[in-house]
């Protein structure tokens, strides 16, 4: 069968079971947009290419399948660099197809030409410049395999316009030609036995669960391991939902804005079991002062993570789910052989003491004050189904959402962790809703973030994708304001945005959404209820929140986690509770 390169590309995507892609056409990708008309694949037309990339990420976050985005050359390709970098940092499987000027014109500074593969080399797991239409099925098959296996990540396929128009003989490859790519699978049995021994010997163990748990579909295995050993679990920002917040062994989020118990239990642990986590600087604080007395078991599918930041005592390269299952087996073997864990009741009591003395807390809403953002989130949380998908941007609202939501299911928390991409929430929520139309999707956004990518709500309205957006509108770039208040002598430099410029309600309505506003505590529940009733179009709520509110606890940048700062009204309690 003779096909054009463009037809072969779309057919190859169909062969990879792609159901939906996010994109925006233009000159160099025109040939590929023609066969889309006849394809089973749903195409969602975005308003900016960055939106296409974040939608593909949101889709991938909640489905586990690679998100697909397609854009043209030049400025379109550069506009999707941010989502590629975001997906690279957070190990999100994504396949991006870009148009390119004709191969015969490459290097001539042709209209809308840029060196897309060169620019994206360091933010993709791999990329290809296709030079012959005959290669297309092979490249697409390899692209999906690389994006979704091992440590997942984004890949990019750059297709010159003349290659799209070239005729090829259709085939679908049944083998991959990737001699240099062998993702890890099972762990080393000897290391797994050593890890099991360490788990049973530890007096103050903590499981440090990272985003790798979710990538490896290992949430059930993690729960089995925690319950079998009785070891508490912290869930990093990328792992919220990987272990249920309602579980008695769950300590919640560690790190710079983690809760006191999660941070301090890691600091005082004698064993950290790092599962699919990467000792990110936002978790460790000053590395030299991080968990100084802890032995480290580190499991990761990416060998380069072992020893990158902290040298593990027991390194295990492997797929998190397979390794945890093997670890469960090894612990059971030890228990059957008569081994038992030491008495950890004192440690468990210490943890419970911290939990009681330093719960996440904020000063209650005072009469006449602007809304407390934490209070808004608690109302939202309590008014939505348990398996609601929450998507956030980056900043204070992100930290409060992670802190105050109760994540009891995997794949219900979508955010930009590693790159910290403002503007992530709106498009990622749209992608998440496309991937899981059966679930309620709430974006929790800041006013600064919302202004970066809000135009994608036009996409959502046009495509009837009923996402809900809660803007915690404090009229500031809030996290920057917090740092300027705490570390720059309250000298506020270029952080004020205004609460009503733009008018978020009118803006939402102009984009085909329902726009709502809450200014007083009495408004909060009714607008949430109203938003929850709307199911046929996007809804945006403008919550006017208190700009003075800061995210606590906080470990100041560059300091060891022992320097954790609790909210002022909890300060007198520091040093108690077995600390």
């Amino acid at each position, binding site marked *: 069968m003779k096909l054009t390169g463009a037809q072969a590309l779309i057919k190859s995507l169909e062969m990879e079971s792609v159901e939906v892609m996010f994109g925006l056409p233009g000159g160099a990708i025109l040939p590929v947009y023609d066969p889309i008309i006849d394809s089973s694949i749903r195409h969602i037309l975005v308003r900016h290419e960055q939106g296409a990339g974040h939608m593909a990420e949101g889709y991938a976050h909640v489905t586990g399948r690679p998100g697909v985005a397609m854009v043209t050359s030049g400025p379109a390709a550069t506009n999707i660099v941010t989502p590629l970098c975001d997906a690279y940092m957070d190990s999100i499987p994504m396949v991006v197809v870009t148009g390119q000027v004709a191969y015969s014109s490459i290097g001539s500074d042709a209209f809308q030409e840029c060196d897309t*593969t*060169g620019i994206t*080399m*360091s933010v993709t*797991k*791999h990329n290809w*410049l296709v*030079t012959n239409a005959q290669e297309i099925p092979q490249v697409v098959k390899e692209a999906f395999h*690389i994006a979704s296996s091992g440590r997942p990540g984004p890949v990019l396929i750059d297709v010159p316009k003349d290659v799209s128009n070239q005729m090829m003989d259709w085939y679908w490859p049944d083998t991959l030609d*990737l*001699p*240099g*790519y*062998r993702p*890890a699978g099972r762990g080393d049995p000897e290391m797994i036995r050593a890890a099991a021994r360490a788990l049973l010997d530890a007096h103050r163990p903590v499981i440090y669960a990272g985003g790798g748990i979710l990538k490896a579909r290992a949430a059930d295995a993690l729960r089995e391991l925690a319950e079998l050993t009785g070891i508490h679990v912290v869930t990093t920002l990328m792992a919220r939902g990987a272990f249920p917040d309602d579980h008695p062994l769950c300590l919640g989020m560690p790190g710079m804005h983690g809760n006191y118990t999660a941070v301090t239990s890691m600091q005082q642990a004698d064993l950290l079991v790092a599962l699919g986590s990467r000792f990110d600087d936002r978790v460790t604080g000053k590395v030299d002062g991080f968990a100084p007395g802890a032995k480290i078991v580190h499991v990761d599918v*990416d*060998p*380069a993570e*072992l*020893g*990158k930041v902290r040298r593990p005592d027991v390194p295990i*390269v492997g797929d998190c789910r397979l390794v945890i299952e093997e670890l469960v087996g090894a612990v059971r073997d030890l228990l059957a052989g008569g081994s038992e864990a030491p008495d950890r009741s004192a440690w468990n009591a210490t943890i419970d003491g911290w939990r009681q003395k330093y719960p996440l807390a904020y000063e209650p809403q005072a009469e006449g004050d602007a809304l407390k953002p934490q209070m808004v989130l608690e109302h939202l949380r309590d008014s939505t189904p348990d398996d609601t998908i929450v998507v956030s941007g980056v900043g204070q609202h992100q930290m409060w959402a992670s802190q105050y939501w109760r994540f009891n299911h995997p794949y219900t928390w979508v955010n930009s962790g590693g790159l910290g991409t403002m503007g992530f929430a709106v498009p990622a929520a749209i992608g998440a809703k496309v991937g899981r139309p059966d679930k309620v999707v709430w974006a929790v956004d800041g006013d600064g973030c919302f202004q970066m990518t809000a135009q994608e709500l036009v996409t959502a309205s046009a495509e009837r994708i009923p996402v809900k957006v809660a803007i915690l509108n404090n009229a500031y770039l809030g996290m920057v304001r917090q740092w300027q208040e705490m570390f720059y002598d309250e000298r506020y430099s270029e952080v004020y945005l205004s609460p009503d410029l733009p008018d978020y309600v009118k803006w939402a309505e102009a984009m085909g959404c329902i726009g709502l506003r809450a200014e007083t505590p009495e408004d909060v529940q009714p607008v949430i209820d109203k938003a929850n009733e709307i199911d046929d179009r996007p809804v945006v709520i403008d919550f006017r929140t208190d700009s003075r509110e800061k995210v606590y606890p906080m470990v100041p940048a560059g300091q060891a986690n022992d320097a954790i700062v609790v909210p002022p009204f909890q300060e007198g309690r520091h040093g108690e509770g077995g600390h």
Partner: protein
Amino acid sequence: MAVPVKHHILSVLVENKAGVLARVASLFARRGFNIFSLAVAPTDDERFSRLTIVVDVEATSIEQITRQLDKLINVLQISELDPADSVERELLLATVRAAPADRGQVIELVQIFEGRILAVGHDVLTVSLEGAPAKVDDFEELLRTYGIVELQRTGRVALPKLVRRPQPRAVRAS
């Protein structure tokens, strides 16, 4: 061009595809690793090329460099060559001042080092020397006495020594 004390030689087998060298260079730049010298050429099998990379590991562990390199899809195999267990060679080309009064001494120096004279000008000579990097260093230093007009070294290439010992330590992580 003295090699830093803390250097390692990596022999990296890669797929012979467009852009592979850019991927390796981009990785080094992105991760803040330092390349001291780099030589690339196809192997006997035209599907593959071999990179000989001398890396400066003052700041980064060789383990981290090799593990990151290994993640490149086009990288097939990485071997770390211990300088003590490998044969290293480098080629130097130099155009050196050789006024009639000095010319005899320069020719003698080239002969002592078993180098070659490639071209003769009125008051310059272009010479070449192939040898172990230390020998090439010595040669270069002695040539400087006469005045170097232009100089180009290839960077080293290396293979494991043929001794009846286990293979060079494979640093591939998997």
